[in-house]
């Protein structure tokens, strides 16, 4: 046909290989259908990985001495940790209700399984400089005998065990209110907060009277 001849030089050089296209489509459909039954090669690869993981020599199990169990979290692109014994649980931040007539570090209150918690932004509490917007979608619930509140975190990294010997005292450059709430810093630049001080701090108790 004349028109076919006329059209082809205008487009890209080689004509479409419809047969190859059809084969590729068939293959993709097959892949989707067999997604839940991994192939033998896939199974073999997974089993191999597990064998290697199991065959690895475990870490020197537990170095003798004192340990600290901490919950590590990320806040404003820095890693912080609090001792596990002061942490009741972690939860996603949902249904935050701002509370009027409170200091700036009190963001508001949340309902966690029928329990009302106040939420503290420790960046504001420590008067750290704002470093842009972050996720702030996790709460770490701190609890002591007479105190219960949540602090905000961007993400929860997990629970770690840190040898007490590895903890260095606070950096001399850190001054002011931050220094007062620090337990120390690990070589991995993990800042360990003193949750006990936070829980017993007087300034956390807000007694605000609003006139009339």
């Amino acid at each position, binding site marked *: *046909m*004349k*028109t076919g001849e*006329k*059209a082809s030089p*205008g487009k890209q050089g080689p004509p479409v290989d419809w047969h190859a296209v059809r084969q590729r489509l068939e293959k993709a459909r097959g892949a989707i259908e067999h997604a839940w039954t991994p192939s033998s090669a896939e199974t073999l690869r997974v089993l191999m990985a597990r064998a290697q993981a199991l065959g690895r020599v475990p870490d020197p199990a537990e170095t003798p001495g004192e340990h600290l*169990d901490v*919950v590590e979290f990320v806040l404003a692109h820095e890693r912080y940790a609090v001792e*596990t*014994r002061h*942490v*009741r*649980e*972690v*939860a*996603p931040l949902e249904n935050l209700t701002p509370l009027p007539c409170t200091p700036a570090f009190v963001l508001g209150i949340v309902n966690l399984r029928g329990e009302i918690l106040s939420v503290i932004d420790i960046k504001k509490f420590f008067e750290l400089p704002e470093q842009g917007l972050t996720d702030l979608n*996790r709460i770490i619930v701190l609890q002591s005998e007479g105190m219960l509140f949540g602090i905000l975190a961007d993400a*929860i990294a*997990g*629970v770690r065990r840190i040898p007490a010997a590895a903890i260095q005292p606070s950096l001399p450059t850190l001054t002011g209110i931050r220094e007062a709430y620090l337990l120390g810093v690990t070589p991995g630049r993990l800042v360990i907060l003193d949750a006990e001080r936070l829980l017993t701090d007087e300034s956390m108790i807000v007694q605000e009277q609003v006139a009339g």
Partner: protein
Amino acid sequence: MKWFLDLTTRNKLFAGFGLMIVFLVTVIATAYTGIAAIQASQKSLYQKDFANAQDLMFLRSEQNGVRVALLNMMLLARQSDRDIWQQDIRQRSQLIAETTQRLLERNRHDARLSGRLEALGTVQAAFAQTRDGQLIPLIHANRTDEARALAAGIQEERYRRMRAIAQELGDAAVERARGAVAESERRTAQTVRLFIGVGIVAMALGLTMVLFLNRIIAAPLRAIADSAGRVAAGDLTADIPVDDRRDEVGLLVTAFRRMLENLRRTTHEIHEGVNVLSSSSSEILATTTQVASGAAETATAVSETTATVEEVKQTAQLASQKARYVSDSAQKASQVSQSGRRSVDEAIQGMNRIQEQMESIAGSIVGLSEQSQAIGEIIATVNDLAEQSNLLAVNAAIEAAKAGEQGKGFAVVAQEVKSLAEQSRQATGQVRAILGDIQKATSAAVLATEQGNRAVEAGVRQTGETGEAIRLLAESINEAAQAATQIAASSQQQMVGMDQVAQAMENIRLASVQNVAGTRQAEVAAQGLHELGVRLKQLTAQYTI
């Protein structure tokens, strides 16, 4: 002296010659006076002294005659003869009386002379009385002796006295005449001396005038003549001194100076003009040479053009044949364009079908995109579940840590749960990324189909335009066929015209040959002009300015 120099030459000449004329007039007057005096002297000599002397001689002669007659009467005896002699005596006596009277009359003013003449007259009267009263009657009476005595006596004495007086008077007259002649000679000599003196003075004055006029007229003229000679020899640098004389010489000097200045200026200008002429003629010569070579080139070019015209003629013949061929070809092309139009219509239908296909492809791809969006929602849910599992694992780890040693195994399980949750999160991230790629690919596919659709629309439009173009092409080809026929006819006329052009080119060639010859002549003429310029330059170079 200045005033004289300022006189005109005419006045100078008038002055010089006037002086000479004055001298001449003086000389003439002197001469006239002298000659008149001499004339008067001679006149008096002739009219008075000479006449007196003559009259006295006549008187003596007549008295002699009378005496002779008396003696004859005495000698003759006949009466008739005596009467003849008596008659003669009477006549002579009358003459004597008249002469005496005339003398008296002439010398009335001379007292001494008139006195002597009175005495003569008295003696004569006495002689005549005696003769007529006594002697003649005695003779007639023939008393000859007595008559003879008387005649020899008193009459003889009277006669002698008369003769003496006459002699004396005649001598006196001669003396006086001699004196008058001497006076006349003296006066003549005086006049001659005067002439000589005046002549010498006039000559001296004339010589002085000549020298003077020479000095004031001829010398400046000679100086100007010298300058003119130098000018004639080509030396225009001669300097004429300023002369404020107001006569013709002064005017001539001034005019000559002005003439020389003008000549100098004119020669200078001529010199420059000749230079210009010379250079211009050189340029003309060069130009003419160029023109000549140009004309020769033109002649060559015309020859070439003639040959070219011949070729063009053949080309026109060829063009005529080609035009017929083109006409035939145009007929065939018209038929081909008809079939082309049909093909284009079919192409338009095919294009429309392609458009429909493209639209269905676009719908399928959009459906695919929506389905992948549903997958994305499912994946978001899975991701949320992974997050919650992660938190649950952390809480479990916290609880395990609180349980101390008893919770250690639980902590391991919590760790595994956390790891699985992390893997789920990573998998959902990968699925989300793949979904993003699928979204991009489907968008690109939709865009491509849209573009394809547009391309097909453009193709339809272009095919329509192509059909229209082919139709126009067919019309054009028909027109071209007609035009080719006309071209064939035109090229026939063109061939005739080319023949005429060839003829005209031949004429042009002849004209260009003549043009070349004419240019050669012009070149020769320019050469002559150039040589003339050079010669003029040499001529003007002779004049030193």
